[in-house]
């Protein structure tokens, strides 16, 4: 508790000195008030009513007003106020509805002076007139405000708010006759004391109860209000029209608001629930508090500035039974901890970045892009002496990506053309591979092909080794992906290898290639203990042959293929090392891959071939399909990290249960949300919806269930349809009728934006095939596109 620094601030002009300090009360406080000379403070609560003097180092208990043999509820205070003219005069509002005044000048122990029991319900607030010694105002739960003249035994006038309970009453500081009252229903009323029959002015200030209001000490027309809706609003009531001039959004309902003395734009607030801090706001900077006091452990119930002309001392009482004096210098300044930087991506890859100017100054070696625009500092306000915010000059930079370098066409095309469900896995992979290839994304295409091979039903091929003929028939579906192989290539391969062609019919050209390789392998692995090793030899041979084919096909590309060794090594890894795909793809610089990227015609078949030859041993060794799961998982992570979350998500969906368990929920969710976000930025609503639907994360699935409400207006009376069903409440007619069949439309509804007639999608389509006029007969020439 002794964490506060012992600060004795030098003050300008006033004699008040002190430090941040606190005092343990015996009971929770409900309200506090200070006397005029700022030397004493009174604390009132349900079980406490004491006066403390504020010394330099500590609070000292001066008097206990809660005396007497039997403590009645009159001592249970909801509010207390110390008269600003007369140091001996106090008033309290009791929870039982009594208004009590206290005279400290009395000789007896019991200082109770007068008792008014006119209110029927709890009195929430009492307030002395700032200039008039004998005038006291009270506001109660029963909806009445009463003005008491302390020289009389009963109230002199009663003001009826004509509504629910009064939460706060405050005399205007400047205007002798005016007072403001705030109500539980959100209204604020201004009254002229001379006219008790009717309020002068009323306006709705908040949504829900207005807990407090405070007149600006200097500016005649400013009234601050705080409400349960977590807002503090400043109203200008000086003109006939009430204007909201400032609004501060806090994080909890506002229980008290007090203008800071001598600071035109500052006010202090505390909350009623949940939040225990006291904030001081600069109302011109409504987003971040100017100062913050975090000492209390329970809600703060009363705040008051110690002296009406001193802005540096704040007293507060709290439910945690402490009384604090806060030094403004000790306040924490949230703005110091704030991070005044912002970053945002535009739709087309532009990046905007705003930050402190100083950050940019020292940064000399920053690469400037061709399209970079740098905007000058914004909001360069004239330094305002009254505003104590540090001036932060900031700069905004916009980075544009070079035109075309980062085109996302492929993304859109792929998103639209990918098929994610509804067919067999092999078909899906094939299709997607094809799409990717058409868009010149070979790596992706290759991945799809690999996936197909890895995950296609292994049962069909498992017996390859045992029986060649079975192997052949089983191999066929497996190799479907190679349909794209050029026939010529197939033929040439056949010529080169010349092993199995005798068995092949010409009309089986498509399948001939796989069969060849399959046969080769089968033959070569027969009787072998380590099939994989043999296979390498085989693959190597294969490749050599194929390269020759390629040379013949496209001699110009020769330089791409001078590194068969490397290519071979890579493939070696594919077979032996479970993390091979990762390597393969990581080595973006390797000629193998780059060649792949750059070359279309020749390399693809090679890749396919190599894959094909790999595929056989998988089954030969009887590897379970999920053997590759960790590989695929790494692959997905790789894609996601490369920024191709599309691939990650598509594979995730296509593979479904096969891979889902390998990747933790959160990562999946993250991918899904990123992908969906991207899709929506490109306005691919249908695709994004499909993805949401297909996702297996519950948190993603529920996107579809959020905000499913569609608000419609009645087509007859043009007013919102509030009730469910198809009948408008107001005009009692069916709302959305089809102009063609005159039935209610309950499904897809299409309407003309010109004449606002419409109906069932099908009906309108049919109608407009034959006629160009609106079916409703309004004469409008509707157009259906």
């Amino acid at each position, binding site marked *: 508790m002794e964490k506060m620094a012992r600060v004795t601030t030098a003050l300008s002009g006033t004699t008040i000195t002190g430090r941040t300090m606190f005092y343990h009360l015996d009971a929770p406080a409900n309200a506090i008030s200070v006397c005029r000379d700022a030397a004493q403070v009174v604390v009132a609560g*349900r079980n406490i009513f004491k006066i403390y003097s504020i010394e330099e180092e500590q609070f000292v208990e001066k008097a206990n007003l809660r005396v007497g043999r*039997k403590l*009645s*509820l*009159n001592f*249970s205070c*909801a509010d207390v106020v110390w008269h600003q003219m007369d140091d001996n005069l106090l008033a309290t509002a*009791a*929870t*039982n*509805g009594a208004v009590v005044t206290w005279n400290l000048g009395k000789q007896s122990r019991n200082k109770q002076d007068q008792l008014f*029991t006119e*209110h*029927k*319900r*709890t009195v929430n607030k009492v307030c002395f007139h700032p200039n008039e010694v004998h005038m006291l105002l009270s506001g109660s*739960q029963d909806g009445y405000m009463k003005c008491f003249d302390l020289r009389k035994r009963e109230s002199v006038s009663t003001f009826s708010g004509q509504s629910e309970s009064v939460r706060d009453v405050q005399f205007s500081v400047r205007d002798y006759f005016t007072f403001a009252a705030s109500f*539980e229903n959100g209204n604020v009323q201004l009254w002229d004391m001379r006219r008790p029959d009717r309020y002068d002015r009323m306006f709705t200030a908040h949504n*829900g*109860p207005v*807990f407090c209001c405070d007149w600006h000490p200097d500016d005649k027309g400013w009234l601050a209000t705080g409400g*349960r809706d977590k807002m503090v609003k400043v109203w200008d009531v000086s003109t006939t029209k009430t204007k909201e001039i400032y609004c501060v959004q806090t994080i*909890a*309902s506002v*229980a008290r608001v007090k203008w800071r003395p001598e600071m035109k734009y500052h006010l202090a607030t505390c909350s*009623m*629930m*949940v939040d*225990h801090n006291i904030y001081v706001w600069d109302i011109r900077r409504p987003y971040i508090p100017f100062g913050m006091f975090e000492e209390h*452990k*329970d*809600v703060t119930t009363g705040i008051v500035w110690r002296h009406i002309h001193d802005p540096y001392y704040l007293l507060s009482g709290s*439910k*945690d039974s402490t009384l604090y004096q806060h030094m403004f210098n000790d306040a924490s300044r949230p703005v110091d901890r704030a991070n005044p930087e912002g970053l945002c991506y535009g739709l087309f890859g532009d990046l905007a970045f705003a930050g402190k100017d100083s950050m940019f100054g020292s940064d000399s070696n920053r690469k400037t892009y061709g399209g970079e625009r740098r905007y000058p500092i914004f909001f360069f306000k004239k330094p305002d002496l009254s505003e104590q915010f540090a001036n932060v000059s900031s700069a905004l930079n916009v980075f544009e990506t070079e035109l075309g370098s980062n085109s996302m066409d492929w993304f859109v095309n792929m998103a639209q053309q990918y098929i994610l469900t509804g067919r067999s896995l092999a078909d899906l992979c094939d299709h997607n591979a094809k799409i990717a290839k058409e868009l010149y994304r070979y790596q992706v295409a290759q991945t799809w092909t690999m996936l197909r091979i890895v995950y296609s039903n292994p049962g069909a091929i498992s017996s390859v080794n045992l029986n060649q003929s079975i192997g052949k028939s089983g191999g066929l579906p497996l190799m479907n992906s190679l349909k794209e192989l050029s026939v010529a290539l197939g033929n040439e391969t056949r010529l080169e290898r010349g092993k199995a062609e005798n068995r092949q019919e010409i009309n089986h050209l498509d399948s001939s290639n796989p069969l060849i390789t399959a046969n080769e392998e089968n033959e070569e692995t027969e009787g072998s203990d380590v099939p994989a090793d043999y296979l390498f030899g085989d693959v190597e041979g294969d490749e050599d042959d194929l390269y020759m084919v390629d040379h013949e096909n496209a001699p110009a590309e020769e330089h791409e293929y001078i590194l068969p060794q490397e290519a071979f090594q890579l493939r070696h890894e594919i077979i032996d090392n479970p993390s091979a795909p990762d390597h393969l793809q990581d080595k973006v610089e390797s000629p193998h891959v780059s060649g792949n990227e750059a070359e279309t015609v020749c390399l693809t078949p090679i890749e396919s071939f190599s894959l094909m030859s790999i595929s056989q041993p998988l089954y030969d060794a009887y590897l379970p399909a999920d053997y590759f799961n960790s590989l695929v998982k790494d692959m997905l992570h790789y894609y996601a990290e490369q920024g191709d979350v599309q691939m990650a998500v598509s594979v995730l969906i296509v593979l479904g249960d096969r891979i889902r368990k390998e990747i933790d929920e959160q990562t999946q969710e993250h991918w899904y949300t990123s992908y969906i976000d991207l899709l929506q930025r490109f306005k691919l609503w249908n695709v994004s919806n499909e993805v949401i639907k297909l996702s297996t994360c519950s948190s993603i699935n*529920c996107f579809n*269930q*959020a905000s499913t409400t569609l608000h419609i207006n009645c087509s007859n009376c043009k007013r919102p349809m509030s*009730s*469910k*069903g198809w009948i408008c*409440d107001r005009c009692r007619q069916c709302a959305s009728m089809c102009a063609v069949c005159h039935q209610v439309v309950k499904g897809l509804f299409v309407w003309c934006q010109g004449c606002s007639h419409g109906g069932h999608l099908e009906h309108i389509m049919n109608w407009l095939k034959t006629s160009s006029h609106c079916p409703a007969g309004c004469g409008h020439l509707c157009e259906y596109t």
Partner: protein
Amino acid sequence: MRLADARTKKTGRSARERLLCSNCVKEMGVRIPRPLRQGPSEFIPEKEILQLGREDAETRVLFIEAFATLGRLDNITLLMGFHPRYLDSFLKTQHYLMQVDGPLPYDYRHYIAIMAAARHQCSYLVNLHVNDFLQVGGDPKWLAGLDSAPRKLQTLSEVNKILAHRPWLITKDHIEKLLKAEAHGWSLAELVHVVVLLTHYHSLASFTYGCGINPEIHCDGGHTFRLPSVGSCYVCDFTNGNNAVDDLLNGQEGNEQGTETVCEVEALMKKMKQLQECRDEEEASQEEMATRFEREKAESLYVAPTEDEESVDTREVSRHFEDPSYGYKEFPRQGEQNVPTFRAQDYTWEDHGYSLVNRLYPDVGQLLDEKFQIVYNLTYNTIAMHKDVDTSMLRRAIWNYIHCMFGIRYDDYDYGEINQLLDRNFKAYIKTVVCSPVMTTKRMYDSFWRQFKHSEKIHVNLLLMEARMQAELLYALTAITRYLT
């Protein structure tokens, strides 16, 4: 079937009419269920309840809406149809709690509703929500009993028990236990949802018993497949001898009723007028006010309901909760225990409860706030046959009496008023409905306010229900607030 039933209701035909033509269907071998009892309420003759098809426009819209959202028009809704303004708010709140996105999954919500209703052995609500629970895809295994439900739900049992019967005993330790349970911990938002659901269904159980709601036709105990003639006999048997005795008693009382009850209303009116006028003269000392609160509290001890019967189907329903012996106990008298009186002004719904709920479960605070306000301010300015009466005093007395039973004290209320305005029968009824609703009998319902209309008695029930809900909520939310600070 449920839809069919509701639809016939919508078209204005009563279920009874439908039965008349059932013979022809029966020949086709279809067994037609028949309602065991007539109308939505056991206490109120069917003909005095709002006839469907004859309701005013406002109510009709509400009914249509209720049907559209729930797929049924249950008896509770039908009875509340007496007070459309309230019904609107009630349905909105219930819809928000059960069917709109919120912290809890749907099956949990219904299961919690079942737990809460089961605490009061309210088989009506339990059956209703068992159906709903299955409909939203709940695991039927959970219904075998609380032991079969997930551990997380089991942890609620304690809080459910306390809130239902002795809410003043709830402490921040209970809250902490729920929030800190490692794997089965609740989040704060979920917890607030839970608390609102529990209190909602506890008090709804009070309403169900208080108005003697009959089982829905599609629920267990709501229908029979016997032939009509046999069926009616069965009803007689089933409702056991008690009713016959009740009727006898009623009959005897009925002789004196004529003169006595008219006086009852007049006396009540006179007292209210007196209290309003004499308020200023009669200056009760503070101590006396305090003792009056204590007296009222103490007196509520003596109007304890007569414990004549145990509920019929305890076993069936009791598997959804533990410790069936735990029931309402009187709020301890001053000094007996360390439970301090709850000072209403220190933690009010409007200031504190609302803010907390709305922070953790957005919009619910607003909905509940509206509901409390509507029910508290609902009046038609009538009492029995009198018109233009300011009933605010009476309403406040009922509200505060209920809060008084839960140990919540308003500093600014003179508890002497309660004694003046609420007679013994009425107090007994309130006490039974609020504290041990299962013991409510038709005799109790009939014996208070005999000259009053049924709609007024339902109004009273609404007050009981909401006051109870607020009391429970206040205690629960205080505990949560304490935990947070």
